[in-house]
């Protein structure tokens, strides 16, 4: 069984967003880049499955669409434990463009399970995984919070509004995963960091594809008015404000 993890290279989640270039772009200076948090959990679960002999996972590959500047993030995934990596050499333009690039790589080498995080913490799209599955014409299961593999038997929990369902689909498929798939992301060991340097990182050229959407500019939220402080001895005042001023209770 082979697992492919799709990685997005995103600014650290604590990054303060500063706009530049007439609000057309955000300031990337000093930004720490990380593996998208959900992709990191996906990778963690794939490696846990690889450690489990009953799961019979032979190989965990990671793929990202990005320039050379994305390589530290890919190396980090290799250090955490992925066996090899693919970098599609292109600037990611939009979700469809990214999905089309990954689909092309998958057509060259089919994987049994392709895993995407449920969204990326930068553009919050939640769309690459579903698009990839549709381009490849294979099933997809979304909002997956648990995955168990016993040879060819793969069972997953997915969230539905108001509960959970335990589902199975035949391989190959795309799993779009969220928190719960793993709890704490696995971190790289010293040995992992050393061996990551020698693991294969295949750089492949992008295929010709048009993007369908375009970011036309950014805006920061208006600053919030100062918080109205209420004395802990006068909790009733808070309730009156919620009822009469905010009108929410």
């Amino acid at each position, binding site marked *: 069984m082979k697992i492919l993890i799709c990685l997005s290279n995103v600014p650290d*989640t*604590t990054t*303060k967003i500063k706009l530049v270039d007439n609000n057309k772009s955000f300031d990337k200076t000093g930004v720490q880049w990380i593996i998208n*948090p959900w992709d990191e*959990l996906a990778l963690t679960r794939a490696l846990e499955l690889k450690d489990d002999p009953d799961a019979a996972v032979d190989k965990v590959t990671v793929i990202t669409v990005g320039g050379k500047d994305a390589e530290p993030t890919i190396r980090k995934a290799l250090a955490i434990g992925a066996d090899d990596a693919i970098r599609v050499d292109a600037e990611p333009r*939009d*979700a*469809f463009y990214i*999905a089309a690039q990954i689909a092309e790589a998958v057509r060259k080498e089919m994987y049994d399970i392709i895993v995407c995080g*449920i969204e990326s*913490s*930068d*553009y*919050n*799209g*939640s*769309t690459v*995984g*579903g*698009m990839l599955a*549709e381009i490849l014409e294979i*099933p997809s299961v*979304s*909002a997956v919070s648990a995955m168990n593999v016993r040879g060819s038997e793969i069972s997953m929990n997915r*969230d*539905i*509004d108001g*509960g*959970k*369902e335990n*589902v*199975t*689909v*035949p391989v190959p*498929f795309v799993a779009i995963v969220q*928190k*719960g798939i793993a*709890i704490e992301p696995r971190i790289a060991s010293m040995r992992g960091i050393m061996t990551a340097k020698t693991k294969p990182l295949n750089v492949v050229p992008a295929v010709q594809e048009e993007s*369908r*959407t*375009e970011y036309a500019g*950014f*805006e*920061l*939220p208006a600053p*919030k*008015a100062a*918080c*109205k*402080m209420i*004395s*802990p001895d006068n*909790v*009733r005042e*808070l309730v009156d404000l*919620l*009822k009469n001023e*905010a009108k*929410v*209770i």
Partner: protein
Amino acid sequence: MSVLVYTENWDGKFKKLSFELVSYAGKLAEMLGTTVTAVSIGSVDQAELQKLGNYGAQKILHVTGPNLDKLDNQVFSSMIVQAASKEDASVVLLSNNNSGKAIAPRISVKLNAGLVSAVIKLPVSLNPFTVVKKVFSGKAFTNVVIKTDTRVLTLSQNSFELIETGNKATIENFNPEIDTGLFKTSVKDVEKVTGKILLTDAEIVVSGGRGMKSPDNWGPIEELADILGAATACSRPVSDEGWRPHGEHTGQTGKIIAPDLYIACGISGAIQHLAGISSSKYIVAINTDKDAPIFEAADYGIVGDALKVLPELIEAVKEVKSS
């Protein structure tokens, strides 16, 4: 031309989010000079379907058949695409909830349409077609231009007001062609949460953080939620410690919510937590540390121990509710 909206039902009933979608579709259709067709999959009675008319649908395509009570992403997206072709839809609209996120990307690929997810308001321009969404987990907004003639949008929950039109819709049975080989998702087991208000649907949310000190102290949070008709939530450390289930974790990697009122008890307000709640219309913070970042995000604040403040708050809410 039309605006096609996918309205999900839960055991034959629609929820507020379905009506939000149809309300949005109605306003969008007005801007585009066209009409709204809603597509509903699975068995729903006529009176329930007609509610979609009241929120602005002119026409309803009702799909019934075997095996449609559980979501299969390929099957559902194929049916909605067939409805879109039949109705010559220029926009296909879904909710940005679990099923919307699951099928909208597939629909966009089939229709060669650009997709923007988690849209928060009506388009700011029709030419080029430009919509607004949040990025960087709420730290910024962006305008996104869709370059294709057909567009797929998913709408953020609780971001659009309900609009009752008093319309009556025509209801049509619709039988899309479905290759039975397409049904690949088999559901082995279902675990339903009953009697509780869903976090993503809730208009009021009461949430606890590490300042609650122990999982045994959650009684007042649940009681307050109960009398307010609210859902309960928690911060990441609380769910990581196993004090509360992961499904309650609100924040960047947990649930992103937009209730009318969010009451944060003993939550300091790490940037990742704020990312999950910053779309709330009003935020109340109760925390012992007056310098905690939660007070920068809050509208109303009490510097104090949540364990002491909560019982008084419960009494005060009861008084106001009964008066």
